[in-house]
């Protein structure tokens, strides 16, 4: 019974490997470390297969395991950094902190240029999965730095002050990155998700 459960979890979980890897890579910025974290997450899932409760989705469960791994790695990194390696260099682009990209959506008075049709609100599991597919595609299109800050906030659930310290940016810059992520996701979903 256990062996069968493990096997089915292993097979299903493998489908999430690409997304888990992408999420790990965005945060860890190192292909080997991301690959390790992904592999460990999948192994842990198989090992703990009996504790998986079907009421939560497998993806949510895998994301939760990976989340703890990444927070652990970050904690270790910030400990060792204090003693040996210098702070990472700031790799932001010059336009990273401008909101200008979204100005085209508004007129000179800051008013929306066009009406916003309501989206189909996902109700069933199938509709929600369809929405997640579009959301996932839209998330992978975010610039790396924007995506990293956004997922630190929304997924790892770090406090804004912790994120600023880790990324070496000001609070104002973080607000802009988060704003850009949300604006870009709304726009992308608006172009690719069904309307009512």
């Amino acid at each position, binding site marked *: 019974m256990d062996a069968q459960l493990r096997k089915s979890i292993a097979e299903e979980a493998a489908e999430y490997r690409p997304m888990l890897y992408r999420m790990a890579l965005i945060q860890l910025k190192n292909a080997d470390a991301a690959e390790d974290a992904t592999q460990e997450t999948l192994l842990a899932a198989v090992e703990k297969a009996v504790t998986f409760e079907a009421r939560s989705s497998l993806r949510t469960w895998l994301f939760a395991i990976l989340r703890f791994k990444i927070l652990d790695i970050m904690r270790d990194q910030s400990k060792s950094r204090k003693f040996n390696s210098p702070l990472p260099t700031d790799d932001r682009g010059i336009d990273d902190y401008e909101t200008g990209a979204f100005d085209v959506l508004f007129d000179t008075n800051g008013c929306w240029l066009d009406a916003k049709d309501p989206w189909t609100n996902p109700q069933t599991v199938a509709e929600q999965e369809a929405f997640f597919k579009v959301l996932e595609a839209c998330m992978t299109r975010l610039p790396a730095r924007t995506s990293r800050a956004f997922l630190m906030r929304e997924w790892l*659930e770090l406090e804004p002050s912790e994120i600023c310290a880790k990324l070496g940016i000001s609070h104002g810059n973080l607000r802009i990155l988060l704003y850009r992520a949300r604006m870009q996701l709304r726009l992308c979903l608006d172009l690719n998700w069904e309307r009512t």
Partner: protein
Amino acid sequence: MADPLSCKETTWLVSEARERALSSEERQNLAEHIATCTFCQGASRQFEVLFKEIDNYLGNSRSEKAAQK
């Protein structure tokens, strides 16, 4: 009486509200603007769906709280 918000400023507050509780003045300005602007009513509904599904997708603590309700 505070200056009325533009739609663009409204989107700022909608994003900010994910990080901190808005002040009562901000909440009032936001509500007043949205009440009179159909474009912002549409955008706010889209943001509501977006934020709810981001929480569900990532399985963060907000989605757990929503599920307990």
